[in-house]
């Protein structure tokens, strides 16, 4: 195929569809119990040097508990999909977990401003970057989910986003129109947080799914954290509600409030005060080091972290905020 133009960015994963198929051939299709602790799941499936992707959208339905655990277990030299990653990026950058980065949106937290520490890390030159857009990364995961090595899309052409990407400009064989070919992205390991899952990994998401349905299919290994375990019978009662089927999943971890301090739709709103605490303390490297010790390195689990920031009382207040009610706040 004629290559019209090619970005200079390096691909951190192999786009070969047959190599991916060779992996998926070995993945279990059996309905087996995949329940384990988050600690065990991260130890078993997240490996230094591999490619990591995180579900959700920045601080929305994002598996923050898993990000903490990855930092706590000092995973290093990973490649990471910075696919509108905001607070998750901030946490992983704090642990310097990655040194290779596919970028759509990083260092910012949308309306909240920028993470001083994440920005500083990105300005050291320690991280090799490759530029994309939100849709580029969605499309790269879609190609992987489809089992093909590329899909053509119509953005980035003519811009530096293309120039510093790993995309290739081609022509449509039917119309001669130019397209940016997006190489398939098969992450080695991903983590997605969902509302409900059964012990086999059948998942329900009561929220926007962002790119997670394709991410689940594209990932060579997948850890699910869920707000609530539900019985398989409940999954089978209403199979149209299943968003991720069990055979995509390697581990299921029940982690209530697993997206805290981010938002979980219909469950709890984000803890904006605590996120602002992150943004503020990052400005002082010494204070930030202490903050990380206190909040990540020296805690055992996400429950300990939540206890540090108001415990169940705070969770109920955040549920009130999410539902725009005052039911819990008025309780006492």
């Amino acid at each position, binding site marked *: 195929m004629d290559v019209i133009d090619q970005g200079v960015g390096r691909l951190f994963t192999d786009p070969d569809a047959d190599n991916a198929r060779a992996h998926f051939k070995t993945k279990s299709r059996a309905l087996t119990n995949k329940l384990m602790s988050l600690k065990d799941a991260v130890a078993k499936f997240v490996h230094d040097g591999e490619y990591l992707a995180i579900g959700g959208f920045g601080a929305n339905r994002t598996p923050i508990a898993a990000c903490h655990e990855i930092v706590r277990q000092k995973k290093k030299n990973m490649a990471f999909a910075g696919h*509108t990653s905001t607070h998750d990026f901030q946490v992983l950058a704090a642990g310097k977990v990655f040194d290779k980065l596919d970028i759509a949106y990083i260092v910012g937290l949308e309306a909240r401003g920028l993470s001083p520490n994440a920005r500083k890390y990105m300005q050291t030159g320690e991280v090799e970057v490759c530029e994309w857009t939100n849709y580029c990364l969605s499309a790269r995961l879609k190609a992987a989910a489809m089992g093909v090595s590329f899909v053509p899309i119509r953005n980035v052409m003519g811009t530096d986003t293309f120039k510093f990407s790993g995309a290739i400009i081609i022509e449509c064989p039917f119309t001669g129109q130019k397209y940016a070919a997006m190489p398939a992205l098969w992450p080695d390991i991903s983590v997605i947080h969902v509302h409900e899952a059964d012990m086999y990994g059948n998942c329900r998401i009561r929220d926007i799914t962002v790119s997670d349905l394709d991410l689940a299919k594209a990932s060579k290994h997948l850890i699910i954290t869920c707000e609530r375990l539900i019985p398989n019978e409940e999954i089978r009662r209403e199979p149209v509600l299943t968003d991720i089927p069990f055979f995509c999943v390697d581990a299921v971890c029940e982690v209530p409030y697993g997206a805290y301090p981010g938002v979980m739709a219909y469950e709890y709103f984000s803890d904006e005060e605590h996120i602002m605490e992150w943004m503020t303390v990052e400005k002082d490297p010494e204070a930030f080091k202490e903050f990380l010790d206190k909040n990540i390195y020296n805690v055992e689990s996400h429950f300990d972290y939540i206890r540090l920031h108001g415990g169940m009382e705070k969770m109920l207040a955040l549920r009130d905020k999410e539902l725009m009610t005052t039911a819990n706040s008025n309780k006492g």
Partner: protein
Amino acid sequence: MADYNTMELMIVTGARELKSGASVAVGTGAPCAAAMLAQKTHAPDLLIIFEAGGIDPQLPEMPISVGDSRTIWKACQATSMTDTMEMFCRGMVDYTFLGGAQIDMYGNLNSTRIGPDHQKPKVRFPGSGGANDFGSFCWNMMVITPQDSKRFAEKNDYITTPGYLEGGDSRDKSGLAKGSGPYRVITNMAVMDFEPKSKRMRIKSVNPGYSEKDVRDNCGFELLAHKKIGETHHPSKKELDVLRGEVDPYRYVIGR
């Protein structure tokens, strides 16, 4: 005539461009405020889309993130980012608002970096996010931004999001969707559009309190101008009442 600040004027000016029955993809902040204001005033049938998957929500307040749960509050659909992006690609999205650290005379935007070394930038910004996608696919891309001669740059350090690229027919030739592109640039000083042939930015109207010279002095490149430059209309009392009372009562955006 009511008293108002610059942010309020920019939001009202942006809102007025949005037609009822059209669709707009918005981010947080001023873009969202402009869309909400339009929907609550002259454009009740404006379809508001959030790229992460929220379709036509009845926004109870300004979202903090384009993916937070407010973006699906009583929405017609909570879908995926892949799905909304496909909607962009198919040509179903009429308007969007973007910003950036730099903008050039063709409306190209930089939200990625300052400095020449890509792997070790002097200043790193978030990058495209959905901006390049919005700029690539929306029929009419608008920019709301404060204006100064560094931001309105002779040459961007980096082009994150396409405007008219190098002007003329270069955007069409690039492979980007035909007929799409920058439409308005709304600043604290003026409203700009783009000359149809050269695709260069030109002054359409100057905001109350500013002169054409102010606009030119705060721009790093030569601006074209309409034959007759108008004055940007003041916000009406109704627009200000809705903006302050219903859209942004806590002044998250208009208080900046």
